[in-house]
């Protein structure tokens, strides 16, 4: 039980929860508002993170411009995916979006001259010969750590500084998103979720509305990618496996697809599930070796997804009618 009282455990869990919360917010705009089932969301995070790493390390851009470029690249990725395949019906789009994310990962994996390939961003050819891409952010994180030190003493960590940056952003984005969902734009999209023909007969271009939702959601995926890149200080292709998209979906379903405000709590629940299997050390978990615990995490996430969809598809805070209608 020791892990429970270690602050490091909670700091890590909550930081990851915040990042995945921002990630899931993108899916929330896409599915909760527009009914678009994007299963390739992880691709946006990969595009954004790698854009930053390559621009800063290889082309010596400032981190801030690189971050802007990363988020823009993710939004552009969403636009390309949407222009190509969003006219297809839901099943096809879901498959196409998975293919998009897998192609992205495959290109990253094989373009080793640019991305470092399997070895990740540490292997990107660096004109300076050393250094990562987070130097400019680290200055700020260290400044925050200095302010936190008088309160937390030796417990102060970079994770803690990240935590105090990520969560205000999550709340800011949740607020922005909930404002967005009160607009007439969102009302049209909600109408298209249930029926294409009515909004189309009112002269609304259904495809364009959906595309906008996909692009905005992808930008949030890109923002999550920025935080991810800063949190881990290096990226590797296996960070962006298909399963990561489903982490986001799980948070979204836990919260209830249309309940943007439940997202923060759902993210914490997910973060606990994600981190708990790694840190907790009591029987029967203590019987498992460390790689076995990694499977346990995946197993639990699968189990929660299945149970949620069978027992409570509307999520913890959602309304059943809104989920069942599709």
């Amino acid at each position, binding site marked *: 039980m020791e892990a429970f009282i270690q602050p490091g455990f909670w700091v890590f869990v909550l930081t990851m929860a915040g990042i995945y919360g921002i990630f899931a917010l993108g899916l929330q705009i896409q599915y909760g508002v527009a009914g678009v089932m994007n299963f390739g969301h992880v691709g946006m995070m990969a595009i954004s993170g790698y854009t930053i790493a390559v621009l800063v390390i290889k082309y010596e851009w400032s981190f801030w411009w690189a971050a802007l470029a990363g988020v823009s690249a993710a939004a552009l990725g969403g636009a390309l995916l949407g222009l190509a395949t969003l006219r297809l*019906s839901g099943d096809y789009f879901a*498959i196409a979006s998975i293919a998009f994310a897998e192609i992205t990962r495959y290109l990253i994996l094989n373009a080793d001259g640019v991305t470092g390939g399997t070895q990740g961003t540490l292997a990107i050819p660096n004109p300076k010969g050393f250094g990562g891409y987070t130097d400019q952010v680290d200055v700020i994180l260290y400044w925050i750590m200095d302010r936190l030190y008088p309160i937390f003493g030796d417990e102060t960590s970079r994770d803690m500084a990240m935590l105090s940056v990520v969560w205000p952003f999550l709340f800011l984005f949740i607020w922005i998103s909930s404002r967005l969902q009160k607009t007439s734009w969102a009302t049209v999209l909600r109408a298209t979720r249930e029926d*294409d023909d009515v909004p189309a007969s009112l002269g609304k271009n259904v495809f364009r509305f959906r595309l906008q939702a996909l692009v905005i959601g992808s930008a949030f995926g890109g923002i999550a990618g920025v935080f991810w890149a800063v949190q881990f200080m290096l990226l590797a292709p296996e960070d962006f496996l298909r399963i990561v998209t489903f982490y986001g979906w799980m948070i979204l379903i836990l919260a209830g697809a249309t309940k943007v405000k439940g997202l923060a709590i759902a993210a914490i629940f997910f973060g606990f599930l994600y981190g708990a299997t790694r840190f907790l050390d009591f029987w029967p978990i203590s019987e498992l070796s460390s*790689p076995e615990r990694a*499977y346990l995490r995946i*197993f639990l996430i*699968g189990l929660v997804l299945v149970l949620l*969809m069978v027992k409570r598809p509307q999520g913890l805070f959602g309304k059943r009618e809104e989920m069942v209608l599709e």
Partner: protein
Amino acid sequence: MTDLIQYLFNGLVVGSIFAIAAVGISLLYSVLRLVNFAAGDFLTLGAFITYFFSVTIEINFFLAIIISMGAGMAISWFLELVLWRNLRRNKAGTLALFLVATGVALMLRPIIQYVFGTETRKFNVDILKTYDFLGARIAHTQLMVLIFGSLAIMTIALFMSKARIGKDMRAYANNPSLAAVSGVNVDRVVMATWLISGALGSLAGVFQGLVQGQFNNAMGDTLLLSFFAAVVLGTIGDAYGALAGGILLGLFMELSQLAIFFGGVPSNYKPVVAFATLVLVLLFKPEGLFGYRTRKV
């Protein structure tokens, strides 16, 4: 010329595996409107169960394959009873089916890892034995897969066109309510679909394990998108189409290495050929080779 024969042969071998896996996915879609994201892990499971019986317990290889097909059917039967039937009764939507299928895949993989370990495995067959055929090198395992794969494909095709339950399946896929009023037993059709897809998943897994020589627990999942490509190429929901789509995709992937295509696509980009096929079909002919256009918006 030798290259052409070699790639053509490899393509037919790979293609017959794709065909067998794809037909299970396509049948499930046609009957249940379910895109089975767990299909890849059923392949892995089939390969590992066969490995367990044939290598660890040392019983006859073919008997082990049959046991693993039975196990695939049993798991599918169990999931239909405890999971899918309830979801159908609750009128679960597309997203729910997607996420439950994913959840099943996420649960299955750790179980395989926990029970069978993460080590690379190989079957107790001579993977180095090759035959010479018009200058092309044909592995013994490839020949096995091609012969038994063709038999399996023919059996499936016959079953779909001749057997009562196969006809019921196609009737139900075409028009569920019409089939139901004409006396087709829906639960029986759905169960049969699951059993077939479970058996075919295991079989395809053994074949893939044979062709690869060595396999680990990521084997099936890595191939999932290639199967989807085969399914979409052959028109989603069309069983015969999936067979054709699988074989065509296998041929595309192998023949793309021929020098006349951009000097030959490097073999580590073979998955990209599958993805590209999927994307191109979705872009230009989403109804697939054998479908007609019904999409809207």
